[in-house]
Each structure stands twice: as structure tokens, then as C-alpha cells.
């Protein structure tokens, strides 16, 4: 009887220890890390979705505006460059890599913006059903990218906070000492200013 009682006590002690370790934020670091990685996957998926729309868009515009060769080629080039820069989840702690990814995607955004802007000059193109559908898909995808980026930034902030705040800080300094803060997006130049339009 005494034996089982002590065994029960040991079991309770193990349970209590487990709960208190979990309560002390042992789990928060891996949880936040996986969450941030998942959010990064969303970011990449949405950028990929945009890249997938581009060949179709370029083909449609080409049918109406062949003379805009420069803009069309710059979109194609920016797309192939952007799709070649991929980051797997383990490279998120490298700010250089994240910046490379962001720069490549920004370049594509710029080229796409110019493509949409020049297409304004072609009334037939603007009323083409296929073009309208692609344009709204592109708009929707840009929205999704913005949301995915915002979610990723939030998840990274939460994760980085677990590495630098008590009580998870204890685990960050010991068991998870290999974990480094993740890099996030930097505001691109001029993003906070309204655009200048020159005619």
C-alpha cells in the first residue's frame, strides 16, 4: 500500500514538474517558431500565386500592346528572378536572405505596376474580359500578399519576444540556445509616402 502510494506520489510529482515546465514557457518557443515558419510559408505561397498569374497576364497584354516590349520584358525578367530566390524556413534567421527575397519581389512589384499603368493606354485591352479577370486576380493576390506579410511580421515579433522575455528567456538561453531571432520585412523606401504622379 505504501509502495503504491509512493509511486502515486512520484507520478504526481512528474506531472507537476511537467505542468510547471510547460507553464514556465518551455513550449512557447517551439510553438512561436513553428507559427512564424507557417506564416512564412503563407507569404511564399502568395508570392508564388502572383508569379503564376504573370505568364497569362503578359500573354494577354502582348496581344494588344506589342510595342510595350520593354515593360513586358522587364516583367518577365523580374518574375524569373523573383521565383529563383527561395528561402526555406531555416534561413529566416538570416536578415540578408530575407532582404534578397524582398528586393526581388519588390522589383517584380515595380515591373507589374508599370505594366498595369501602361495598359491604361489601350482601351481594347482594358475592356478585354480576360485582362479584367487577371487584373482583379492580381489585385486580390496583392491583398493576400499584404495580409500574409502582416501576419508573418506579427508572428516573428511574437517569436522574437519569446526569446527575449521572461520566462521563456530561461529556455532560450539554455535548451533552445541555438534559436536565433528571425528577420522580418523592412519598410521599402517611400512606402510611407503617397505616390508622386507625373504626366
Amino acid at each position: 500500500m505504501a509502495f503504491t502510494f509512493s509511486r502515486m506520489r512520484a507520478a504526481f510529482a512528474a506531472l507537476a514538474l511537467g505542468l510547471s515546465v510547460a507553464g514556465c514557457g518551455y513550449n512557447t518557443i517551439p510553438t512561436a517558431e513553428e507559427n512564424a515558419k507557417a506564416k512564412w510559408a503563407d507569404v511564399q505561397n502568395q508570392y508564388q500565386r502572383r508569379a503564376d498569374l504573370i505568364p497569362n497576364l503578359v500573354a494577354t497584354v502582348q496581344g494588344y500592346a506589342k510595342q510595350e516590349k520593354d515593360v513586358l520584358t522587364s516583367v518577365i525578367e523580374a518574375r524569373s528572378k523573383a521565383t529563383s530566390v527561395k528561402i526555406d524556413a531555416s534561413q529566416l534567421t538570416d536578415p540578408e536572405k530575407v532582404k534578397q527575397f524582398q528586393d526581388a519581389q519588390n522589383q517584380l512589384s515595380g515591373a507589374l505596376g508599370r505594366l498595369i499603368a501602361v495598359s491604361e493606354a489601350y482601351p481594347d485591352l482594358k475592356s478585354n474580359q480576360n485582362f479584367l479577370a487577371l487584373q482583379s486576380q492580381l489585385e486580390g493576390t496583392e491583398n493576400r500578399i499584404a495580409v500574409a506579410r502582416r501576419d508573418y511580421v506579427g508572428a516573428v515579433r511574437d517569436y522574437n519576444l519569446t526569446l527575449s522575455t521572461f520566462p521563456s528567456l530561461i529556455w532560450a538561453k539554455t535548451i533552445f540556445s541555438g534559436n536565433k531571432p528571425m528577420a522580418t520585412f523592412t519598410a521599402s523606401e517611400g512606402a510611407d509616402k503617397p505616390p508622386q504622379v507625373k504626366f
Partner: protein
Amino acid sequence: MVGLAILRDAPSALLRMRIRFFGRALKARGPFAVVLAAALALFATLAFAFDFPALTGRVVDQANIIPAATRSQIEAKLASLEDKSGIQLVVATVSSLQDSDIETFSVDLARAWKLGEAKKNNGLLLLVAPNERKVRIEVGYGLEGTMTDALTKVIIQSAIVPKFRSGDYAGGVDAGVDAIIDALTVDSAEWQKKVEGARRAAARSHRPDSALRHFPAVRLHRHLDDPQCARADGPMGAARQPDDLHPLSPSSWSGGGAAGAAARAAAIPAFQAAAAISAAAAPRGDW
């Protein structure tokens, strides 16, 4: 712009304040205060930056643009949609977008309200901001395949905006709800054809509102006479409480769907140029 900056800075300022408090409390009260402050800081990051109206039913008319009669009609349609398909569509009108763009506002609102079933992510939000002249259909991740970006744009442009332009907000919302329900319940390819046919007819006759005549608005009114629907309109239907609305995990709103005519004018610098150009040609709002 100043208001926007304050709004954006508010959460981080709150965070800084709490962390400072955390520093002072550390000396004063020991680890307990630290844990408390960390919990508070975490809570601050989870909170939404906007002041949202409460989810009081299927139609939340904060801007007060839908008369009671139309409102109960719309609510009955929304209830019948959920009974049949499980899809939860909520209509919201807001008096202000609180200095934000409608894309950010609507995705945050849909997340805050947790529309749709958590496993299926089948929520939809039709958001109207009459003061900013903006309208948007926010689509839950599970419905993005059916309610595509192109489709939301077609619905906004052909069903909603023409009525809004003539000042008929209630009619525009009603027509929009009809169109959304139709697109969800009828085979979408068939529906798309119908819309394109209507558009071509409109282009031929050069009357922008003739597209509406082809809109299958009659289909849904039939459900109002349906005994099924009368039951839904009873204790459960008309004034559904928030706890009846199934919770949805916040991440399943990915922010897709096109908003009205103007391109997204925030966050993406390259798109700002294109948006500004189209904004120069057209009025700022969607109608």
C-alpha cells in the same frame, strides 16, 4: 495621414508603455509582476487595432443605411443560405474605416468576428463604408475557390455599385447579397456566363443599369415563402446571437478578393503609382 500614423503607432506605444511598466514593476514586486506584464504585452500584440462594432446579427448596420424591412428580408436570405449550405454570410456597414484602407479593415473585422465554420473556413463578409464610398467582399479561405477575386469584382461592379451610385444603398446591398448567394449556390461557371451575357447586353444598349435586369434576383425571394425559411426566421433566424456563430480560426482569412474599382493603394509601393493613375481618372471611391 496624421490620424493613420497615430493609429499605427498606438499598439506599439502601448507595448512600450507596458514594457516600461514591466521594468519598474520588476524592482517593486518581483517575478509575478513580470509574468503579468509579459501576459499584458502578449495580449496587446493579439488585440486588433480597430474599434469594431459588435456582431449583433447577420446584418450589422452601423452606418444606418438599411431600412428595417429590407434588413429583415436580407437576414432571412442569409439564414436560409446558412441552413442549406452552412455558408455564413454577414453584411456589415460601418460609419468609418478609421483611417484605414478597406482591405485591412475588412480582413481584421472578419477575423475579429470569426465568421464561418472553423473547419471549413466558409465565412463571407460584405462590408460597405458609405462615408468612404468603399465596398468589399471578404472571402474565407475555404470559399476562395468558388468566390474568386474576379467574381467578387463582377458582383461589386454589376450588382452593387450601380444602385449605390443612384443612392439606393439598401437596394445595392440586397442585390449584392442575391448575387453572392446565387454565385455560391448555382454552378459558378454557369453564373459567370450569365453575368458576361448581361454585360454584353449592357454594352450593346449603352445603359449601365440594364445589366441588373438580367440579375437573377427573383430566385431567392422564393425562399422567403418557404416553410423551411419561416422556421429559420423564428427564434434562431432573425436576431441570431453571436454565440450561434461558429468560431473560425483567425488565420483562415487570407485577405483575398478584389475591392471595387480602385486598385489597392496602400502597402505596396509599386501599385501606388498604378492606383494613383486610375484614381486620377476615376473618383476615389468605388462609386
